[in-house]
């Protein structure tokens, strides 16, 4: 069966959930073949984890010669593996880095690229994608018509499937050109973890906006009661109340959780573009004219500083 390459998204060898989602999608299209570019001492654990979620093959590439050189070397590695494997498609997580690797790879392979798929299905072996465009107002179905389909897929596009694959390990000694190593990370300061779920992967997101007046405590407390991620509108980010990584919207994250709660966010197009495809939407706002109320399943006209703490207390009581 045709191999479907999946570039594995991981942090220091710990495979992230979107990689398992891609394996589930790859299974619809052919035989899932994961590509793990990482440290050799983390490879065994990664191979085992990827096999458990359906990888028939795992290409293992030592990242020592390319660590810190951004995306160009990873595109070269994938190009070399693709030349050997002749895959039916190449799936990559739709992160900023994933999309850039995909962009370079598409030019190298003379192949069509589709980004930000929220679903991928097989149509006679060829992948058909679904994307959400124009601030979520339209759905687009597309196909790649040239070369090897390269598709970047958003987190939460599929559920991971725990069904063991053959898990054959293939170590690949990739060669990376000097020209791919011209941009380098010279310093990095890791973010301190909030302990909350990743914004783009969370099932529930609670976001705060201008209406918080800079006090995110009620938003954080409700998020923690619900096991949710915390997001924010651009107004809150531009005011310096929360870091830019919290921003939901056109120039921040696009989220599509089961439940999105917007507190003190009026709902400018900029923000709606990032959350409109959420399954269920709740808004709390003092202004009954807030445009976001047009989108909601439940709207509460009221002050978030009283509504949120009262709701949080009631939820915590229910949990006992």
């Amino acid at each position, binding site marked *: 069966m045709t191999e479907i390459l999946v570039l594995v998204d991981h942090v220091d060898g710990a495979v992230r959930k979107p990689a398992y989602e891609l394996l589930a999608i790859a299974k619809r299209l052919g035989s899932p073949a994961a590509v793990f570019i990482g440290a050799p001492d983390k490879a065994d654990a990664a191979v085992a984890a990827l096999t458990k979620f359906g990888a028939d093959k795992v290409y293992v590439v030592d990242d020592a010669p390319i660590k810190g050189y*951004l995306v*160009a070397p990873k595109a070269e590695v994938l190009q070399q593996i693709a030349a050997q494997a002749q895959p039916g498609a190449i799936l990559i997580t739709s992160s900023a880095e994933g*999309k*850039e*690797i*995909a*962009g*370079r790879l*598409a*030019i190298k392979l003379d*192949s*069509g*690229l589709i*980004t930000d798929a929220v679903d991928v299905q097989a149509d006679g072996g060829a992948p058909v994608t679904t994307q*959400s465009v*124009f601030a*979520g*107002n*339209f*759905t687009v*179905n*597309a196909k*790649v*018509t040239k070369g090897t389909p390269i598709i970047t897929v958003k987190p939460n596009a599929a559920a991971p499937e725990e069904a063991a694959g053959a898990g054959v390990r293939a170590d690949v000694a990739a060669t990376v050109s000097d*020209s791919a190593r*011209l941009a*380098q*990370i*010279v*310093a*990095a*300061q*890791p*973010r301190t973890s909030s302990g909350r779920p990743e914004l783009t992967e969370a099932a529930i997101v609670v976001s705060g906006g201008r209406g918080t007046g800079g006090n995110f405590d009620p938003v954080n407390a409700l998020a923690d009661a619900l096991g949710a991620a915390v997001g924010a509108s651009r107004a809150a980010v531009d005011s310096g109340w929360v*870091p830019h*990584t919290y921003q939901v919207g056109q*120039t921040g994250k696009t989220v599509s959780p*089961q439940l999105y709660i917007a507190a003190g966010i009026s709902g400018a*197009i900029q923000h709606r*573009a990032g959350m409109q495809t959420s399954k269920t*939407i*709740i808004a*709390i706002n003092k202004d009954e004219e807030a445009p976001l*109320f*047009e*989108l*909601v*399943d*439940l709207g*509460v*006209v*009221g*002050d978030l500083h*009283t*509504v*949120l703490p*009262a*709701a949080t207390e009631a*939820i915590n009581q*229910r949990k006992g």
Partner: protein
Amino acid sequence: MNIVVCVKYVPDATAEQKFEADNTVDRVNVDGLLSELDEYAVEQSLQLKEKTEGAEVTALCIGPEKAADAIRKALQMGADKGVHVSDEAIAGSDAAATSKILAEAVKKIGGVDLVVCGMASTDGGMSVVPAMLAERLGLPQVTFASVIENQGKEFRIRRDGDVATEIIGATAPLVLSVTDQSGEARYPSFKGIMAAKKKPVETWSLADLGVDAGEVGLANAWTAVEQTTARPPRSAGEIVTDEGGSGAAALVDFLAAKKFI
């Protein structure tokens, strides 16, 4: 330093965006403007020019006749000259073809040290053109910059990522993209608006760039949109007004009914 800033003419996101019968974005019947995210690229290009003796900024745009508006805005903000690639055969081009045309235009402009792009377009929003352009030009790419510093051709940028804030180093020539966190874009001054009228804008066709019309356009795209569907409008839900705790109660009841708690 020779800086090229890529500017895109996009449908106004606050107007109604639609598709045409051939599933391409309707760019004719809607008002367009310079993509907001490209304004940040113009701003950073101008700031680099202002601190570098003899630097020049060229605004490069691909698009139909109306797209000249995007170049004009960049010139009003302070860019020195414009290049407008316009050709009927370009309509419906995908990201791969767009990057091909941009790459050939950058080569024709010649001696370019820095290509600056926005972080995404506000219509297509793929964020892949800078990477594709860098690949085609054989250059390093340094993307999603929130702070740009340079000493001559040595660049250091800051990127605020999800897991870390990184400082990335690279030597020009390179392709750079900037985020909306890089600093507010300036408004054109009256003087800038008047001066822009005298600034040179060249219009190039595909033939001028040596690009075969058979490599670009909708019919030669490497991807095909099979169908577009308007999302059904969300039906308005229940709106309650908080009075003495009724808002929180409604919220909690709703969450319980939907089994979120």
